[in-house]
């Protein structure tokens, strides 16, 4: 518009502005339709996620302990909650422990889950049904019930695990490594069904003729998996991996109940337990909120790699 010389400059000015206004209103009207359409979704997301998140962020900048809870008003202290957490060695040790724990759990879950799915394809029909039923049963056990069963199994005096292994009275909760290994076993055990069943569904998408062609060309089963099956399964595996990272990084129920309230201390905290102890058990809600925000950021960083890859893959397709 600016490239045109405005010839009758004096008379044209109001006309142009009128046209622009008309144009603008029309544009606003058109533009707002999609927003009106997504308003219900925005409202729902805002209520369920936005408002609590907003509260959490403001809480993390406040001194908000028991005293403030009773007064119903926090005390603004800027970033000092974050400062004290980042200077706390317990936080860094817990973070490192949780990252290692997450890698171990997600790795085991994905490898064992996928292997189980591949097994399902190979076995006879009745065995497949039996395995699937078993998996679904595992899946349907509530976490708290599962913890109790595992606790009994690993009991040092009467546990079936020591009995079967002939380990005498081995104490499975004697060291942090041992405690977290039992927690890992429990979590992987409970997570395998979801991965297996999802990957098994994904395997149905692998065209049989591709596999046949590969095997006629002399490819072994490892080669077939690497070059035929895996590329087709990749999107599913990526989604499962990122979901597993999110679940395992913030896991609370299993470590809290299995290790037990009486045995949780700074040498065996995972992030989920740490934020609970600091925030709720010690009634320091401001600090707890700050830890939660940090956890959110860490999970976001951990998953960004996978999300990026997924988006890129979609773009290629």
């Amino acid at each position, binding site marked *: 518009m600016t490239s045109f010389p405005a010839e009758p400059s004096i008379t044209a000015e109001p006309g142009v502005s009128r046209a622009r206004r008309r144009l*603008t209103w029309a*544009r*606003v009207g058109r*533009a*707002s339709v999609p*927003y009106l359409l997504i*308003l219900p979704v*925005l*409202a729902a997301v*805002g*209520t369920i996620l*936005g*408002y609590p998140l*907003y509260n959490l962020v403001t809480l993390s900048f406040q001194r908000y*302990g*028991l*005293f403030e*809870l*009773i*007064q*119903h008003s926090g005390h603004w202290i800027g970033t000092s909650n974050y400062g004290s957490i980042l200077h706390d060695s317990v936080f860094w040790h817990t973070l490192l422990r949780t990252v290692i724990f997450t890698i171990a759990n997600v790795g085991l879950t994905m490898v064992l889950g996928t292997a189980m799915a591949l097994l399902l394809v190979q076995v006879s029909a009745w065995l497949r049904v039996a395995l699937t039923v078993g998996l679904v049963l595992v899946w349907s056990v509530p976490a708290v019930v599962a913890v109790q069963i595992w606790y009994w199994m690993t009991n*040092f*005096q009467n546990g079936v695990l020591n009995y079967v292994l002939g380990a005498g*009275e081995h*104490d499975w*909760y*004697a060291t942090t490594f041992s405690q977290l290994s039992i927690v890992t076993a429990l979590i992987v055990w409970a997570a395998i069904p979801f991965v297996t069943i999802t990957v098994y569904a994904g395997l149905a998408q692998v065209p049989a003729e591709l596999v046949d062609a590969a095997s006629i060309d002399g490819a072994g089963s490892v080669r077939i998996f690497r070059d035929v099956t895996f590329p087709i399964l990749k999107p599913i595996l990526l989604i499962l991996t990122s979901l597993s990272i999110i679940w395992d990084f913030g896991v609370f129920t299993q470590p809290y109940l299995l290790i*037990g*309230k*009486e*045995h*949780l*201390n*700074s*040498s065996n905290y995972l992030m989920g337990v740490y934020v609970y*102890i600091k925030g*709720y*058990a*010690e*009634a320091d809600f401001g600090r707890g909120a700050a830890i939660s925000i940090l956890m959110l950021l860490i999970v976001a960083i951990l998953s960004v790699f996978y999300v990026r890859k997924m988006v890129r893959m979609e773009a290629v397709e």
Partner: protein
Amino acid sequence: MKRRKLVAVGFVALAALVFAIAAGGVSGANKAKSITIWLQTDAQAANWAPIVAAANAQFQKDTGATANVQYQSWGTHLQKFDATLAGGNTPDVIEMGNTEMTKYMAAGAFQDLTADKGTFDNSSTWLAGLAASGRYNGHLYGVPYYAGSRVVTYRTDLFKKAGIKVPTSLAQFTTDGQALLKKFGKKGFSPVYIAGTDWYFAMSFVFDYGGSIASRVSGKWKGALDTKKSIAGLTAYKNFFNAVSRASKTTDEAHPNPYDVYAQGLAGSIVGPAWYSCCVGKQYTAVTGQFTVPSHVKGQVMPGFLGGSDLAVPVGANKSLGEAWIRAYTSNASEKALEGIGNIPNTTSLFDNSKINERAAARSWFVPTAKNWVNVENENILRNMLAEILTNKLTVKQAAQAASDNIASILNAS
């Protein structure tokens, strides 16, 4: 494009405004002629419930209001209480463990009952150790409810068969234990079943040897577990445990309950609250006795943890009705009934030296009365220290030093 963004921002702002309005304005519930009381599940026991019922009836007679008693468990009641403090719907009366009181009194969670102290029965003869846990800065916030001391519950038949008598010193208790082990030492049997991280029992050794957990020096808390006397106590605990207990070194006194181990015939004796005798199993009821834990000094009682509960009226609660209920429940008659089922009553005027738990309470210890003490429990500093000592992960001195530093930093935190 910019304008479109602006519209989007406008909608988001509008949405935020709607939620902000919706979130405001929560009104308090009307609690007219009924009050809510939180007691611990202990009071649901068959022999305890009638005492609560009698107090409720008395309360109804006195005030015309009804009492709605809700039972809570020790592990979760504070988190639930925090939620009611945030929501403004606190119970009218709450039972608090004596170690839990200080933090809440310091934060202003309870109403000041100082002016009405005289209206509670026996308030001039309240058990000093317990009453202290309900006072903060000279004000009364918690009415003492009952106390409990720790004693040894033992199998009289096994002691008889092994030819041993009730020990009068720690050394004798140790040799007695070894005699039991020799005679009945089948797989998994403990002469004295002690959960490795039972810090209530372990700290008794510390206090018996003249040590302590922490002390207040010129306005600041100083850890005291690393002192010579405390280390002597912890070492004695380690030696005693190794000599007579085959329990897990890392477990606690609720996993499993010592009386369950006893009821399975896997313990010659157990150490814990006097009420453990309730649950020793039918087959052993007739052959079960109790004695006080012997000190390392012959003839003395080992100082035991004085556990107990207070009753408090939270902020926002109906103070006059809350107080009336506490008055009914801690009345002389009610306390007498509580004593009858094995508790230590809240008043020395009812004391009876023939009762073992009251004899055991003659020497007792208590946790540091610091507002952050409960965080030392939350972070399991003492339990972790004991596990490290018993599993030889650290020496007694190293573990005590680390725990002591940790405790000081927690207690001194703002």
